[in-house]
């Protein structure tokens, strides 16, 4: 098949790029409504196909072996990873994808820099400066996302890791990166590649150090922010490569990602600045020791089954523990058993329960829980005092009354599901260990709280069996 050939920057290729980014805009717009979101994602994917094919048809593009080899390898990894990933591991998957995107930007900036160097002429600043910007932001995003992935995957401890004088080190690194970029720009007739590599490395360290001190509970917001960063880095690469599709798509991701980040932070009642620099969860780690020995009420599955089977209303509050234990199907079966006995069962979904907004909705939808039963926080909280039993399955921080009662708590002001208002509280949890924010939960020691220490899936299955036997 003879390849049509498009002139780079010519009318035909530009027109196709315009088609591509229009599809992106339509896709994102549709993504903001539940009914059209799936279709929106497809539209955006088609736009991406148009953009890629257009680029492959550009005049003078060659080296097909390397090109297609890399394309096929990357696509295959993408397909396998996204098919295999468990719904529970979605958050870290997104972090990883975001990371490789950032890595791609940084590498492209480096290759383009080498290309410019090889021409042996003065590099124009309107190419060099955007190139440097995309190198720095891409590198920060790559390493920051990898750390976020590590934290969510449990490779790196989720608790904030603090290094003495961190803010100062970060500030020095940032100043160093900017200074090196200025040096490169001043010597744009013959810039040193080693200084460029130094910029990449310093940015990498900066990315690692900025994300390490952030607690796991805040990771969704961090990933969203890094997502916006990668978008801007891509836009910047578009300036360096004179490519309109990159500029528009990157910028749209940058700005929509910024808004999305702000909305997510608002849902957690925190500011982005606070999340990035406050070292969430650091302070109370010290006070943890003093609260270890408080008495708790422990129950078994049978007691829990009796309490719920004779209740009028039960509200299930799921959290990350349910996701980890893959317990959603058992939970659904348990709820079915309770409903057979005439108990009203609802689910209270905290906006950031799990590791990402919407995490619980996805899992429970997978288990065929009707959507009408998933109540949002604002909807369920007024019902709480009338609720007989609140059953917490692997949730912790989002139920911690300290958010309301203790102004010194690091989660102070975060909206919570007010389970402490319910008549009785049953908590299914493997141990008393603190949640991702790394803080103790007073709820576990409250008088009307019983703890059922078990794996969420096992516990739900046991309770279902006990209810059946009653």
């Amino acid at each position, binding site marked *: 098949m003879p390849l049509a050939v498009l002139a780079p920057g010519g009318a035909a290729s530009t027109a196709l790029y315009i088609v591509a980014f229009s599809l992106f805009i339509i896709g994102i717009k549709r993504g903001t409504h539940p009914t059209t979101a799936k279709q929106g994602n497809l539209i955006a*994917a088609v736009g991406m196909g148009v953009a890629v094919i257009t680029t492959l048809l550009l005049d003078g593009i060659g080296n097909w072996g390397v090109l297609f080899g890399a394309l096929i390898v990357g696509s295959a990894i993408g397909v396998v990873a996204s098919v295999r990933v468990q719904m529970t591991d979605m958050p870290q998957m997104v972090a990883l994808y975001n990371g490789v995107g950032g890595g791609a930007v940084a590498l492209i900036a480096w290759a383009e820099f080498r290309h410019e160097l090889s021409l042996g002429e003065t590099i124009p600043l309107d190419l060099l400066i955007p190139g440097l910007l995309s190198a720095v932001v891409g590198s920060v995003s790559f390493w920051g996302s990898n750390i976020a992935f590590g934290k969510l995957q449990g490779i790196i401890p989720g608790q904030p890791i603090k290094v003495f004088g961190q803010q100062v080190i970060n500030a020095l690194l940032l100043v160093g990166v900017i200074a090196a970029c200025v040096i490169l720009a001043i010597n744009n007739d013959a810039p040193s590649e080693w200084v460029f590599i130094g910029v990449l490395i310093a940015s990498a360290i900066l990315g690692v150090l900025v994300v390490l001190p952030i607690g796991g509970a805040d990771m969704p917001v961090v990933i969203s922010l890094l997502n916006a960063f990668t978008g801007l880095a891509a836009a910047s690469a*578009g300036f360096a490569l004179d490519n309109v599709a990159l500029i528009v*798509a990157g910028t749209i991701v940058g700005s929509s990602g910024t808004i999305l980040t702000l909305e997510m932070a608002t*849902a957690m009642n925190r500011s982005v600045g606070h999340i990035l620099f406050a070292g969430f969860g650091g302070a109370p780690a010290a006070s943890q020791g003093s609260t270890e020995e408080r008495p708790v009420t422990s129950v078994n599955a049978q007691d829990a089954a009796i309490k719920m089977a004779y209740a009028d209303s039960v509200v299930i509050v799921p959290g990350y523990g349910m996701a980890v234990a893959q317990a959603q199907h058992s939970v659904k079966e348990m709820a079915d058993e309770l409903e057979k006995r005439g108990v009203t069962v609802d689910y209270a979904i905290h906006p950031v329960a799990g590791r990402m907004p*919407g995490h619980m909705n996805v899992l429970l939808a997978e288990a065929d829980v009707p959507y009408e039963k998933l109540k949002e926080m604002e909807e369920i909280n007024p019902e709480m005092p009338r609720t007989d039993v609140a059953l917490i399955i692997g949730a912790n921080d989002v139920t911690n009354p300290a958010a309301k009662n203790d102004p010194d708590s690091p989660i102070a002001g975060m909206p919570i599901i007010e389970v402490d208002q319910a008549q009785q509280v049953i908590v299914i949890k493997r141990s008393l260990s603190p949640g991702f924010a790394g803080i103790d939960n007073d709820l576990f020691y409250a008088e009307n709280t019983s703890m059922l220490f078990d794996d969420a899936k096992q516990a739900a299955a046991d309770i279902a069996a006990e209810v059946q036997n009653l």
Partner: protein
Amino acid sequence: MSLMTEITIFVLAAFVGFEVISKVPTTLHTPLMSQTNAIHGIVMLGGLIVVGYANDPLEYVIGAIAIAFGAINIVGGFMVTDRMLGMFTRKPKPKADEPPDSADGGGSS
């Protein structure tokens, strides 16, 4: 394209981005983040251009890794988003009661 034209496009695109994301329900935060995440994989085009015109071994290597990374970002990003959204076959508000038509019947026996 002149720098000023590019900056004009940049600023307008930034406003478009702000404009399209308006009051998203929290349930859709994750899929939407995932979708925009896939879209910035467009930077792979840069990799295609770099490798397509490359003439130095290291450029090949760097560019090829960049393309592979970009392809993971694009393909994985869109597919994961699709899987996530596939879970939302029913509407988030009790507006309509579509019969559950998903193939993954799960454990509802």
